[in-house]
């Protein structure tokens, strides 16, 4: 559907001009992962950033070592519990509605003002992840809106080619969305069984087709030659439960353990993210 109500920017990618400097060639060639395979990037999380919302949180994930690669910046606000619209049917539980929206300027490819299918998809995944965490029957007949704006997407602006990595970026965005929404829900005072956090693990292939694929957590698509498969896990640490699992990619059929080890790595990434979440929430409460 086209957006006829607003003045839309030009469609298509916007790439900042790159001048043929000697120093810049360095940058483009400085590829490769600078972290250990099982280390996630540093993140910053803060609750209570939006005064008008019932609860809110802001998440920023460190830009990778390569300059020009932007990090992920997410802002989440929770509104509610509030009364359902008159048209809604009776619900004995809280009705969760999630909205994930990329800012028009968040990614290289300009986004419209209306949510596109990939953003709706993120919202549905987020809803599934959160529904397993909140205690819905504490709030009958009410609804809660969780709105996440992706202020800056996790994209390499310098990379000239679009490596078909949109879906891998979406996974990183989803794991950030889950973590930031959990913080905002706790800030809003909505009952949750646990703090849910997201984590991503990927099976990547570095330089050369014949090298053996390795599993890394928190992948940045531009740091690797090729991503074969990735999974995003939403995990409750005290319950030891997975509330949402999004798996994508091709795995060699010969190795059956690869699937489970990928999910395990995803859980490990989620545990790391949860540590930041717990630290942020204890800071909030003090």
């Amino acid at each position: 559907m086209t957006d006829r109500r607003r003045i839309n920017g030009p469609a298509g990618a916007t790439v900042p001009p790159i001048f043929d400097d000697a120093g810049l060639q360095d940058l483009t060639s400085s590829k490769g992962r600078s972290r250990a395979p099982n280390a996630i990037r540093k993140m910053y999380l803060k609750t209570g950033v939006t005064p008008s919302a019932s609860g809110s949180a802001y998440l920023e994930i460190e830009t990778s070592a390569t300059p020009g690669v932007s990090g992920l910046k997410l802002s989440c606000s929770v509104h509610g519990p509030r009364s359902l619209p008159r048209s809604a049917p009776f619900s004995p539980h809280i009705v969760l509605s999630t909205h994930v929206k990329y800012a028009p300027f968040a990614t290289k490819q300009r986004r419209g003002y209306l949510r596109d299918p990939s953003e709706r998809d993120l919202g549905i995944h987020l809803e599934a992840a959160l529904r397993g965490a909140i205690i819905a029957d504490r709030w009958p007949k009410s609804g809660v809106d969780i709105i996440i704006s992706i202020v800056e997407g996790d994209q390499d602006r310098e990379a000239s080619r679009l490596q078909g990595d949109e879906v891998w970026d979406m996974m990183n965005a989803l794991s950030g969305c889950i973590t930031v929404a959990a913080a905002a829900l706790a800030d809003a005072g909505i009952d949750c069984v646990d703090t849910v956090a997201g984590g991503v693990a990927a099976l990547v292939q570095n330089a050369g087709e014949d090298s053996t694929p390795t599993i890394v957590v928190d992948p940045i698509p531009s740091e690797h030659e090729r991503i074969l498969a990735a999974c995003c896990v939403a995990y409750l640490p005290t319950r030891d439960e997975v509330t949402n699992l999004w798996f994508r990619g091709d795995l060699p059929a010969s190795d059956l353990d690869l699937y489970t080890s990928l999910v395990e790595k995803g859980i490990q990434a989620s545990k790391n993210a949860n540590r930041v979440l717990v630290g942020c929430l204890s800071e909030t409460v003090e």
Partner: protein
Amino acid sequence: MTTTPPTLALPGQLLGPAARYQPGPGTHLHDANLYASLLGQVHITQPARAPGPAKRLTKITPAPAPAELPTISVAVAASNTLPPGAERDVNKNKNKRREVLPEVGNVVLCRVIRITPRQAVVAILVCGDTVLEAEWQGLIRVQDVRATEKDRVRIYESFRPGDVVRAEVISLGDQANYYLSTTRNELGVVLAVSEAGNTMQPVSWKEFRDPETGAMELRKVAQPQPE
């Protein structure tokens, strides 16, 4: 095992075994253990009265077995949503309380929005002692206005739009409305404005009087409560 529960709790944090505490608000039970479900401070409330010598039972009541355990609850800490650099709003944020939903049995204060011959539609403003942040819609049906002579009740002789009514929640109702009732003496209209625009005084169980014009208006009057 005599571990003391933490003073501050995060969602999912273990508070203690269910054999030692009763779950209060902001907690949940999982695998015979109590966990926090909210972010905030942990409060432990001792049981209201010591289990003394029981009075002679005149009727059969369910055994109050679990009442002797202290209740553990987690309350959202005040001023936890202080935005950066908003020191002036400290007082406003301190007063921020957790939103409470009306529950069955709560006494609420509401304002009458519109009346029909069968019901009065109200907006619930206060639940217990808490001012609600959201406005919830309620319904007082004609048969729930008073306990006696229900067939003689007329809505327009009981409520008028703009009245403030004290009522009890009797049901979560349908998708849009909570069902309310004013069938007790202390429930009914507490604040009414006459047609002339003056705040009226209650003079009987069914009448308000305008102190300036002396006109009487019919209402389902709430019995004035001593402060």
